[in-house]
């Protein structure tokens, strides 16, 4: 034994004799992680969160979260002598007088954009591959919680500098809160410490942004990752992979080296963006004052779809009995997002209710093999994209010389028309892809080699595909639609007929598929 080994041994002994770590650490180190590029998306989320913690801590050393009015006399000449909040002034100081401050600010903002983008990409991966199915419904719901928290955390974060752009965002936030019936005005007054913009807002969202929400984030992310660890990662279908096993690299050394290395790569790319790509140059916007505004006011991308929804809302308000209800704010800013996020959180249970499938699933679906779910996903993406486009309608109108009214009407109509259309088209595409898979298994792949037959006819030579590929294309299940007896044995109608009818109908739609190739079919074609 070398001295190094002896020392490590002594340290390990010290720990193990006190907490008995060897047993469970050994078990954890034997965990196996399957490899697929799409499994990195969740890692990007976690790594950008760590980058946010590091860069954010750096920023708090100089940031002054206060709405106290100061006269700026820093190095940035265009704003010298101007009245502004201490929050804005200290943001200017971080940008111009702290070495590396601007870099850290830009890294922090880029990391936030990457964090949200990675969360959305990860969520879509989990959705389209069916990774949310039993037993992983808890983790799906935690994920929905994380994306919701991310929206709020991001909004608070870019509001902290108290510049003209973010102040306008806060004005809109306060209007949304005020629109809540009965309690809205009170919540707004308490949150802002009085009439908008109040005096308490910046210090309060600072505490929420750097302490409370990151604390919740840390707790939820820990549970999220521990559940992945405990339940073991899902895997794509492939030769030798079953519902009963998990095939991949052990945590030591390959997975650890790859994951650790990948953290530094994500950090490096974020730092590169922070170095060369200017983001949120608050010194150009000026300090916030409610009487001014900058044209082309845009939120960060993950809030853009909500802003787009608000923009396209019809001008509806109800006035009755001395009270006002602003449907033009409530519907787009609270009701529609509320329905969307609730629906997302409940989706695993809705799908399992439709299919009647209560089994555990560890093998991932290829999106084409579950056309209904895939179509629903594409439908939702289409909806969000249209609202996002409308959120930038002023920018688009200027860039492409279009009429803003036309873009708005396009969005208002297509937000109802295009998502269902996307559903139908996606479903058709999935079925076509299933058909293509079927052809590939039966007839092999096209080689591009043309052969002239003795009869003078030209045919293309097809090459049979490998046994592995054939397995990947045919190993999925094709569940039949649910059948529910509407009347019992004595011919009496069962209760809940309407619900059951709906369930049977949806189940039928969910089960539509091109029959996959069976062993018998393959054998038959091989004989020819």
């Amino acid at each position, binding site marked *: 034994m070398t001295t190094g080994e002896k020392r490590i041994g002594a340290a390990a002994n010290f720990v193990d004799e006190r907490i008995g770590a060897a047993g469970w650490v050994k078990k954890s180190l*034997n*965990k196996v992680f399957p490899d697929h590029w799409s499994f990195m998306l969740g890692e990007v989320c976690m790594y950008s969160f760590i980058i946010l913690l590091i860069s954010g801590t750096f920023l708090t050393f100089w940031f002054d979260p206060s709405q106290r009015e100061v006269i700026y006399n820093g190095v940035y000449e265009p704003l010298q002598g101007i009245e502004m909040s201490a929050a804005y002034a200290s943001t200017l100081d971080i940008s111009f007088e702290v*070495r590396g401050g601007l*870099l850290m600010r830009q890294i922090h903002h880029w990391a936030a954009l990457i964090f949200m983008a990675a969360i959305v990409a990860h969520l879509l991966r989990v959705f389209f591959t069916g990774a949310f199915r039993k037993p992983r419904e808890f983790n799906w719901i935690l994920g929905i919680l994380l994306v919701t928290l991310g929206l709020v955390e991001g909004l608070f974060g870019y509001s902290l500098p108290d510049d003209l752009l973010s102040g*306008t965002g806060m*004005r809109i936030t306060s209007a949304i809160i*005020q*629109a809540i019936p009965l309690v*809205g005005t*009170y919540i*707004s007054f*308490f*949150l802002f410490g*009085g*009439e*908008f*913009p109040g005096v*308490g807002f910046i210090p309060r969202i600072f505490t929420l942004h750097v302490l409370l929400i990151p604390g919740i984030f840390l707790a939820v992310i820990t549970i999220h990752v521990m559940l992945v660890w405990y339940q*073991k990662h899902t895997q794509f279908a492939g*030769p030798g992979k079953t*519902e*009963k*096993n*998990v*095939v*991949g690299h*052990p945590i030591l050394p*390959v997975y650890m*080296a*790859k994951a*650790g*290395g990948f953290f*530094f790569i994500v950090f*490096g790319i974020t*730092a590169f963006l922070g*170095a060369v790509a200017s983001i949120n140059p608050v010194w150009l916007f000026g300090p916030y*004052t409610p*009487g001014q*505004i900058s044209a082309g006011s845009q939120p960060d991308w993950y809030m853009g779809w909500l802003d787009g929804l608000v*923009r396209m*809302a019809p*001008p509806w*308000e109800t006035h009755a009995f*001395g009270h*006002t209800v602003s449907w*033009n*704010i409530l519907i*787009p800013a609270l009701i529609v997002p509320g329905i969307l996020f609730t629906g997302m959180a409940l989706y695993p249970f809705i799908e399992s209710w439709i299919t009647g*499938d209560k089994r*555990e699933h560890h093998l991932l679906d290829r999106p084409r093999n579950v056309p209904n779910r895939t179509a629903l996903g594409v439908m939702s993406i289409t909806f969000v994209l249209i609202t996002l486009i409308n959120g930038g309608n*002023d920018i688009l109108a200027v860039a492409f010389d279009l009429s803003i009214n036309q873009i*708005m009407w396009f969005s208002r109509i297509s937000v109802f028309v295009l998502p269902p259309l996307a559903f139908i088209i996606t479903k058709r595409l999935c079925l076509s892809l299933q058909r293509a898979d079927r052809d590939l*298994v039966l007839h092999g792949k096209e080689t591009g080699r043309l052969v002239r037959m003795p009869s003078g006819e030209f045919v293309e030579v097809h090459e049979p595909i490998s046994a*592995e590929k054939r*397995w990947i294309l*045919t190993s999925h299940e094709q569940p*039949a639609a*649910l*059948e529910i007896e509407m009347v019992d044995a004595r011919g009496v109608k069962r209760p809940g007929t309407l619900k059951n009818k709906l369930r049977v109908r949806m189940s039928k739609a969910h089960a539509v598929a091109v029959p996959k190739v069976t062993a*018998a079919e393959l054998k038959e074609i091989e004989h020819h």
Partner: protein
Amino acid sequence: MSTVSNEIESIEDPGTPAHVARAADLNPRSEKRAEQQVAILFALSGVGSLLLIYSYIFIPDDIFIFIPVMGNQNAHQLGLGIGMAMSLFFLGMAAIHWAKTLMPETEVVNHRHEFRSSDEDRAEFVKTVKDGVAGVQLGRRKLIKRSLAVSMGLFALPPVLLLRDLGPLPKKLLETTNWKSGTRLVTDPGDRPILASDLEVGSVVQVLPAIEGHSEDSEHHERPLKDIAKDPVLLIRLRPEEFNLTPEKLAMTHEGIIAFSKICSHMGCAVALYEQQTKHLLCPCHQSTFDVTRGAKVIFGPAARPLPQLDITVDAEGYLIARAPFNESVGPSYWERNSQ
């Protein structure tokens, strides 16, 4: 309910594919090369760290260098950023290249077990819980049960109450502005009163209410931001015949000069864009469009109410003043707002 079709005819699973050795596993020269590549990547990371240190200490922050595509860039900022990016990125690349080329990469198979606990465990669990609950004797001790319910209900109130001092109660604050009968309209910025005769047809001026007891020559004064969130007014002069107003609204104008709250009736943004040709006011936040000639009627976008109009006239010296306060709340709607 049947859920799964019979899988009798599925094609056979060919089983885990055989491990394919990498170049570095077979060829000592490839192995050597891979080792060198990893070392070079680590070295590049070190170069990045040194670049960061050099930029931090030696490059002043007022030097700009021209870089194609990106234009003029601050050398200090760029050196710091590129140095940091290199030091991190290549560290990661080195670790991954090392793992992929040299570390043992045979795949391992773990087995899964159903998560459901065994029936014995479940039964024992239920028994433990039942015994525990029985020990509490809530069913028998009605008095404790009721007093517990009452105290838990009361217990929930203090945390809510403790947040009461976060801010004042709304009262009538949202209904009031600093516009009173006789308040002079002063320019923003500048705080100068405005002679009606000085306003030309087609001009637009942003105004605020004059602060009482404030003389024209004092430079600084206190105007809380919460007032600037409600008080701003846009003054627009058209030819009187261009108006298409109800008699009451027409009476609130003065010789073609009309005044509207600048705070959007939708979500409170500043309605800052005025189109001379069409005489439309546009809010940059959500594109609500208001027609000035028709009393800021909403002609497009999500806003549901016209911008509140301020009743204006002139005083004895010919300066514009408010004849009356706003007769409705300015800014976005809220539950208590009486919009009748």
